[in-house]
């Protein structure tokens, strides 16, 4: 095996040196940094007046893809629920007359549990659950954090760039 040469680790000294102890020069150094930044271009957003528009790779809250026909793509296989490391997803399947045979009678994501890992999106065999760009999630009680199908279903047309992103990189 090749010898790996270990670099000497740079350690910070424990005590302040004389220069730092004098204090004034350090203050000046700090203020200089502050003033330099005052004149740099600003990138802080005036949220909530101005909203951040995330790129396609962003993982906001997971949503269910709704086809044009109004039907969800989901077949209630429960794989997202199984893979979710935070046990945030509850799926109850039932039978439908549609060709897909099976649909989620109940689909609930507990947004207090969700950690936005995107595993559900990755595991879904139907491209039925995707991470949206919605990051505005604040609740006053636990019940409000339970997102049922009413809040989860989002038309496929609004999720186009995420789906394109997934097809390219997943």
């Amino acid at each position, binding site marked *: 095996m090749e010898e790996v040469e270990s670099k000497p680790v740079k350690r910070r000294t424990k005590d302040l040196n004389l220069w730092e102890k004098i204090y004034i020069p350090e203050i000046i150094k700090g203020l200089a940094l502050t003033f330099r930044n005052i004149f740099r271009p600003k990138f802080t957003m005036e949220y909530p007046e101005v909203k951040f528009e995330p790129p396609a790779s962003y993982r906001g809250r997971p949503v269910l893809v709704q086809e044009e026909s109004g039907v969800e793509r989901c077949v*209630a296989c429960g794989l997202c*629920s*199984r893979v979710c490391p935070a*046990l945030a997803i*509850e799926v109850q399947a039932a*039978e439908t007359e549609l060709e897909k045979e*099976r649909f989620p009678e109940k689909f609930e994501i507990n947004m207090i549990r969700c950690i936005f890992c995107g595993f559900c999106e990755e595991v879904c065999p*139907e491209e039925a659950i995707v991470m949206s760009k919605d990051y505005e999630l604040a609740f006053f009680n636990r019940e409000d954090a339970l997102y049922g199908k009413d809040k989860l279903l989002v038309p496929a047309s609004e999720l186009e760039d995420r789906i394109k992103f997934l097809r390219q990189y997943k």
Partner: protein
Amino acid sequence: MPNIIIDAKTLEFKKGQTIIEAAQDNGIEIPHFCWHPKLSVSGNCRICLVEVEQMPKLVIACSTIASEGMVVHTKSEKVIAAQNAVMEFLLINHPLDCPICDEAGECKLQDYAYKYSLGESRFVEEKVQKDKRIKLGPNVMFDGERCISCSRCIRFCDEIAKDPELTFVQRGDHVTIRTYPGQEMDNPYSMNTIDICPVGALTSTDFRFKARVWDMSSNKSVCVGCSRGCNTDIWVRNNEILRQTTRYNEKVNSFWMCDHGRLETFKHVNAESRVHYPQIRKDGELVEVGWDEAFSEAVSHLKTFPKDQIAVVGSPFATCEDNFITAKFAKSVLSTGNLDFIRHTNPEFADDILRNEDVTPNTKGAVLSGLVPSQAGLDINGIIKAIKDQKIKALYLIEDDLVQCFPELESSIAKLELLIVHTSNYNSSTNYADIVFPASTYAEKHGTFLNGFGVLQRIRPAVATAELDRALDGMNMSRLDKFGTKFDSWAAGKKNEARPTWKILVSISKALGYKMKYNMAEEVFSDMASSIIELKGIDYDEISESGVQLKVEDNKTVNAG
């Protein structure tokens, strides 16, 4: 015994066994779809190909008879290549429906694809389309595309259910399963085909899409549909029973159970009609009260009757432990010998496969536990007559429905001065009860049943109650049970306020000044084992999962009307 050499191990086998049987007896797995230990050999799936030295080609292990000195390789290069080829072949027309297929998670095809296939398919053509969602019978749904034509279901109907209903039609890759014209697959054992179908081609209409198998817990129990006492697994999610499946026990039910047992014996556990708290009749209405109030109410009433005016009716639906304490309660605490139970038989239910005429799980056990009248006491017919004649004024009824069994008794029962009932669900008798105690069902307690053939078997809780905790009381737990909190609707399933009959009686006895020192069903059983000769030396560990054959004489109680 002759010897066979499998994978360089010398193993004994019984003369006449096939290679696959010899291997299985010695703990070596040879993959198989169509072979089943209790069905005739069909040899159509070809996944059990093995290499036998001196034979020119690979042979199928399920139909090749083992012989002395035979040298078999189950993991040689040739065999592995053949297994991969068979898997590739089976998957050519397979729909890979796993996301919507109920079999997923317990599917042989999935498992073998993982174990015995390299996962590559060269098939680029279009898959064959077949009929899906065909109802073969009231309880079984068929998906033609998922079927791998193993013929297990056909052979089951022919050989075990003795009711030929299914057959193959068409040829080649169009072959599929049909019932004979004008016939349905409605034999009383039809749902066993769901278990033995190696894929998700046959699924249960009752359980269909209710839950993923990996979201449920399963606990080993016994069916309460008749005195066969088929071994079962009770599958529960969120404290609700969703299905009951059969569990292998050669002594009792082999691999099978009947559809009645599978479907009809557990629905009352989750039913709306459950009694949730002890109830006392006040101003003509049953009202919910706490346990202690109900106990003292029962005690104060029971004390007022002379012992010959009291009768106790036990139950063949209750466990041996329940009945042992019931008998003790009647004889020692209430000092009455008017003690018996109602026999439930249905000759039409019986057949010569599994189903018995006695449609209760524990008639023999009830007798063995001492549920018999004393010499001067009244038996069930005497009790009924005495109720009619208003000689019995107080009746203690355990886990049965006297009014439903004897409708002509209704008006006399209404005239009783005291009727105390233990029951899991409201029934015709609770209409007249003065005090109702909510009893745990068979799925909510430990205990033993003695089946009609003298096999003593254990039941174990699968559903938690207010007094029986899933984790603390050793029930198997699913992932959801383990990690759910009280804030998760999927883990906060309802827990009934119910207690096993023996526990309720122990509390009442105590309140009546008679101390019984039992905290667990197991303690009741060890007391039984020391006082009942047939149970001598037996404990819960010995009964274990497959039961113990007792030497009880075949008394007539089992079939007595």
